[in-house]
């Protein structure tokens, strides 16, 4: 076996499978070298035996099982993803509703002024307003009281001098014998 034989055998795979870029040169070598011809024939016999063994393709039932198995898993995954998306959507809607409710609460209790917790200044102002209202209510009560006394005087009662005492309680009716 010379250098050319060695080169041929290195390229035997490419030659057999038709991927050699030097087919013409290898053909020329084959014409002159019976050893390499025998080698090529032995390789082709071995590959023919491999082909006859029928290992090249999968039986239909195996392929069907693979397709069914994988697609069933894909569908399960898709359902899981769809369920997760649905839950996420529900959670988003719930979060929006909750935020809306919080916003409404905030608006109502802050009286539209921007803060539900009043500052010290606001508290003072509100206290003063409440106090003013209380004073006006007291004034109104005083006026009512004065009008009440005037009315009693006009009716000729003494109750005017004894405020707070009901006329019925002051003079108990005497028992008739």
């Amino acid at each position, binding site marked *: 076996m010379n250098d050319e034989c060695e080169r041929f055998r290195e390229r*035997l*795979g490419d030659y057999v499978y038709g991927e050699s870029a030097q087919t013409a040169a290898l053909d020329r070598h084959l014409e002159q070298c019976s050893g390499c011809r025998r080698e090529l024939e032995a390789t082709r016999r071995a*590959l023919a035996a*491999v082909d006859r*063994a029928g290992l090249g393709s999968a039986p239909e039932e195996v*392929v069907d099982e693979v397709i069914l198995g*994988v697609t069933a898993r894909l569908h399960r995954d898709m359902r899981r993803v769809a369920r997760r998306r649905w839950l996420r959507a529900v959670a988003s809607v719930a979060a929006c509703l909750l935020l809306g409710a919080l916003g409404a609460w905030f608006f109502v209790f802050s009286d539209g002024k921007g803060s539900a917790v009043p500052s010290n200044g606001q508290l003072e102002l509100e206290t003063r307003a409440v106090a003013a209202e209380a004073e006006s209510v007291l004034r109104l009560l005083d006026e009512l009281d004065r009008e009440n006394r005037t009315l009693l005087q006009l009716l000729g009662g003494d109750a005017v001098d004894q405020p707070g005492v009901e006329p019925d309680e002051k003079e108990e009716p005497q028992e008739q014998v």
Partner: protein
Amino acid sequence: MKSDRNEDPLVERARNGDPDAFGELVVRYAASVSALAYQHVGDWEAARDISQTALLKAYRSIRSLRTSQNFRAWLFRIAINESADFIRLSRTRKETRLEAGNRAVEDVATREKRPLERLVAEEERAAVVAALDELPPRQRTVFVLRHFHGLSNAEIAETLSSSSNAVKVNLSYALKSLREKLAGGSDRE
């Protein structure tokens, strides 16, 4: 093979998360992936499980497939790795492969009235399975991809993240070994 590049709209759709597109790829590649797994492990039941696992792994990681990558090469690599894991992990691997390889011999013992040609064919088949089984893993993978799946040296190199030259050398050794076992030896001039 060029048609399988990722400019293939089906692969692109699958990459973008379309499960229907991936389903179509499963239908397209189930046969070749199953055969590839069988050619490595020598058992159809194991090949079916390996194929399913490989295809599901591909589905879950398809976003990592680069646009410059070849889908078939990428998928085949997953299947080859799964097959290698199966062989490594299976303590009964030897038995499994022998079972597959010697099925013909078992049949001879149980069915006496078998035509002679069939008997010869089954013995030859067992010899082929044994010869493939005895190849070193890398040589077997290179031979399987070249002979059964018609991949070029460059495509095999891409699938195995190897060089074309390394593929050539592995193929050359694999053919030498098969020649010696299946065609009555090599010329030793």
